[in-house]
């Protein structure tokens, strides 16, 4: 395609009343361009398990029902993981916060939810 043809095409778009620099954007984004969507660091589908990571240190909680099952199988009611060793969880939280991981992921620990 020659430059001349490109210009013609461009002119045709203008003739048709179409703004060539315009992208297909939502009305809100056009009105408030700085509020345009962005991709959060953590995908939505992973957030529930990440939240448990921050709160328990592991993916699953150990509640009364699990404790009962464990006892039936002849085990201690709570496993010797961060479920019992709270210091281990505190260390993990310290790393998550001070290495900037929690902040970048947008997790608000006081509210227990992600900012975005």
């Amino acid at each position: 395609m020659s430059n001349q043809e490109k210009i013609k095409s461009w002119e045709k778009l203008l003739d048709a009343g179409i703004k060539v620099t315009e992208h297909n954007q939502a009305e809100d984004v056009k009105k408030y361009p700085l509020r345009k969507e962005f991709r959060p660091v953590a995908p939505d589908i992973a957030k529930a398990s990440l939240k448990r990571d921050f709160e328990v240190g592991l993916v699953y909680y150990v509640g009364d029902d699990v404790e009962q099952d464990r006892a039936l199988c002849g085990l201690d009611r709570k496993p010797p993981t961060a479920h019992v060793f709270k210091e281990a969880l505190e260390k993990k939280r310290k790393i998550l916060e001070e290495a900037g991981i929690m902040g970048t992921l947008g997790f608000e620990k006081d509210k227990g939810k992600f900012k975005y």
Partner: protein
Amino acid sequence: MRMGTKTNTKSSSTKYGYFLGCVMPAKMPWAEKATFLVSKHLGLDFDYLKESLCCVRPGVWKAINPDWWLTLTSQNLANAEKQNVVIVDSCNGCYISHYECLQELKEDPEKLEMVNRNLEKAGMKLALKTDVKHFLQVLYEDVGIARIKKAVVNPLNIRIMRHIGCHARKHDERFPNYFDEILKATGVEIVDTPYDKTCCGLLLYFSDPNSSIFHRIGAKMQTAKELNIDAYALICSGCYDQFERAVKIYKEEKGIVFETPIVHFSELLALAFGYKPEDFGMMYCRPIPPTKLIQKLKEGK
């Protein structure tokens, strides 16, 4: 109470720290108990890796940020170093996370420095003095198949399908061969199917739940149903989580009920070593009660 003869010979002076992970303590207490019965029976210096946290699953953390995955996984490695134990994983996901993290840090001093800068914030340090082993490796390489065969006093006359899981194929066919050989030592008949190497679909679940359940794990469970086998044996807790999820979803969404019990490799070993199902709570807290399997084992048919 248990049947059979106890074997108390130490296999080596290695101290093993069993890494429970997230799924096993919450959903598979029978597997946790059976693993300890088997390990002690074989004379291993086997205890929990205490203070453990999520491995952390690379499918999520490494995908988000590889440096974060290295940092958080290193907390478990540093714990193992402090406790002077070799980490033992039976969940393939935990194994791959610990193993690859350790390898990467051994090969990249700059990453190790970065990890230690982060660990230091919690008063921890990693010197790369620990080792990571799969439970299959401990049994086959450290204990040996001859000693395992010798410990079998109650050969299991049952037909099973088995699922080794993708991450156990990291070292080609090494771990799958260990898995099969040890299973055969218990006396079970392994039924081969075209779906044996199919992924359980756990990680696919994050992006496409429908295919993950109905085209991956579903194909395996349907095959088990059609072949009328006695049990589906696995070793990976991550895969078990997916099996359990599939059983529930199939029942709710399709009205299909699976009756093939999903059992852990250690449970079969414990039974073959002479332990009774009640010694490790085999009948409790599982989506498919292994009632028929237990009955068959008791009758010895």
